[in-house]
């Protein structure tokens, strides 16, 4: 029963990782941009929520209503005003350097504004409440909510990509930017919309992270690595792969930690390396919906 519990907790943790991975996967799928500031942007969202909670006293989950649209707007402007300029030409290096620089700037900005103290978002009773399935298996409400939210976000994104004109414009621009301009699509706007949606999901991820655990201005890169691992394990560009990748990473980490408390993160890395070595296209192949 212990092992069942470990796997269940791993799946729930994986929901959080899938949430983190969604935006990274979307941005890579649409514009082949690896956003190294991805993790830091999620921490920015967590601090934004913290500032609102401190200022108004509302529960952190309510701040989603403000933080998500705000981060989407930030995403649009960030892409339009900065990242698009790094994507000119075929050189993959400029976007990497630009987002790496952005990551450092964001970390230091947060350090200036909020100090290096560990912070947390207090969501009240839901944080510790759980459903008792049996004597030795309990499912926390909040981790469950995280997983359900992750699935909902991914289903929503899948529907957006497959059913809407915006989704078609994402896929068309990803396929062939020049041909996309011939059908009237401005890739600068399309990319900016993709980043807006990606950062909206990043905001949700950052907020759930902030409720689940404590955060400091410098933990963004760790979140980036987990998100990156989830994307690679699942398969680049595959929406369901992103969910699968997050879940596999979560289970690997909790199983590793069960064996020995220090092995959790290591086990995740090992699974990631094994996937890279034996199945480089990821678990769900290389279908590219975005």
């Amino acid at each position, binding site marked *: 029963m212990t092992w069942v519990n470990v796997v269940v907790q791993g799946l729930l943790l994986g929901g959080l990782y899938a949430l983190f991975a969604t935006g990274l996967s979307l941005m890579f799928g649409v514009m082949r941009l690896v956003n190294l500031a991805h993790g830091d942007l999620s921490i920015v969202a967590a601090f934004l929520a913290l500032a609102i909670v401190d200022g108004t006293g509302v529960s952190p989950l309510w701040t989603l209503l403000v933080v998500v649209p705000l981060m989407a707007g930030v995403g649009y402007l960030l892409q339009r005003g900065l990242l698009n300029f790094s994507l000119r030409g075929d050189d993959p290096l400029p976007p990497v350097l630009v987002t790496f620089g952005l990551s450092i700037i964001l970390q230091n900005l947060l350090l200036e504004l909020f100090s290096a103290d560990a912070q947390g978002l207090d969501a009240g009773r839901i944080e510790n409440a759980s459903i008792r399935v049996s004597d030795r298996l309990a499912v926390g409400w909040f981790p469950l909510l995280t997983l359900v939210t992750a699935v909902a976000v991914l289903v929503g994104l899948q529907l957006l990509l497959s059913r809407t*004109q915006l989704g*078609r*414009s994402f*896929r*068309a621009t*990803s*396929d*062939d930017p*020049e*041909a*996309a*301009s*011939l*059908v*009237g*699509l*401005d890739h600068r706007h399309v990319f900016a919309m993709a980043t807006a949606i990606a950062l909206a999901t990043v905001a949700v991820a950052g907020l759930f992270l902030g409720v689940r655990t404590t955060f400091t201005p410098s933990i963004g890169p760790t979140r980036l690595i987990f998100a990156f691992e989830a994307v690679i394990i699942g398969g680049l560009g595959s929406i369901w792969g992103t969910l699968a990748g997050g879940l596999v990473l979560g289970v690997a980490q909790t199983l590793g930690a069960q064996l020995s408390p220090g092995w959790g993160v290591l086990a995740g890395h090992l699974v990631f390396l094994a996937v890279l070595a034996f199945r480089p296209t990821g678990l769900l192949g290389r279908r*590219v*919906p975005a």
Partner: protein
Amino acid sequence: MTPLLEVHRVASFYGDFQALFEVSLRVEEGETVAVIGANGAGKSTLLRTVAGLQGRGPGTVAFAGRPLDGVPTHRRLALGIAMVPEGRRIFPSLTVEENLKVGARRDRPGRWDVAAVLDLFPPLADRRDRPGSLLSGGEQQMLAIGRALMANPRLLLLDEVSLGLAPLVVRRIYEALPAIRAGGATVVVVEQDVGQALAAADRVYCLLEGRVALEGRAADLTRQQITDAYFGLGGSSG
């Protein structure tokens, strides 16, 4: 009357290589114009310049009297200039129907929609849920034309329509031209097949090494004139 498209003394460069030298071209609303010429004569470069895909050089391009300097490709479509690029450039991860839908524009309503295009090119109707990458060359060409029509263009630029296609397929595509014209589009077609171009067009421009070597009404030009211009044998204008 203002021509629908006026290209005036346009030059174009690829790095140090000059592809067009002071090329001028007029297209009146409602007519069909063919641009012919050998490989590398600058036909595609001319169309790409009109569509805004080619870097700007000296000279002007005006659409319905409006200069297009600095207008990016996607805005030119909003004005009514659609182009079917060389190589078709179908979006491979979109289905046939999605390829058409992505070409639609709310600000350009008109005769063409998904149903009308599938009616024009029946082979596409049977494959509407197939990915664009799984179509034959002829079907891809039909889809590329249909995708461009979805924006209800005033000016339709067709680049290398018959390149690599079987004669029967080429004929089917050219048979669609009258319906496309009836839908309100003026057509400029770049074609290597001179016979096909002469049959379809009202007027013909022949390019030779980046210059206009010959222009005239399709009906008035003789085979000899065209051959001379095509291969630069006349000496006077080449």
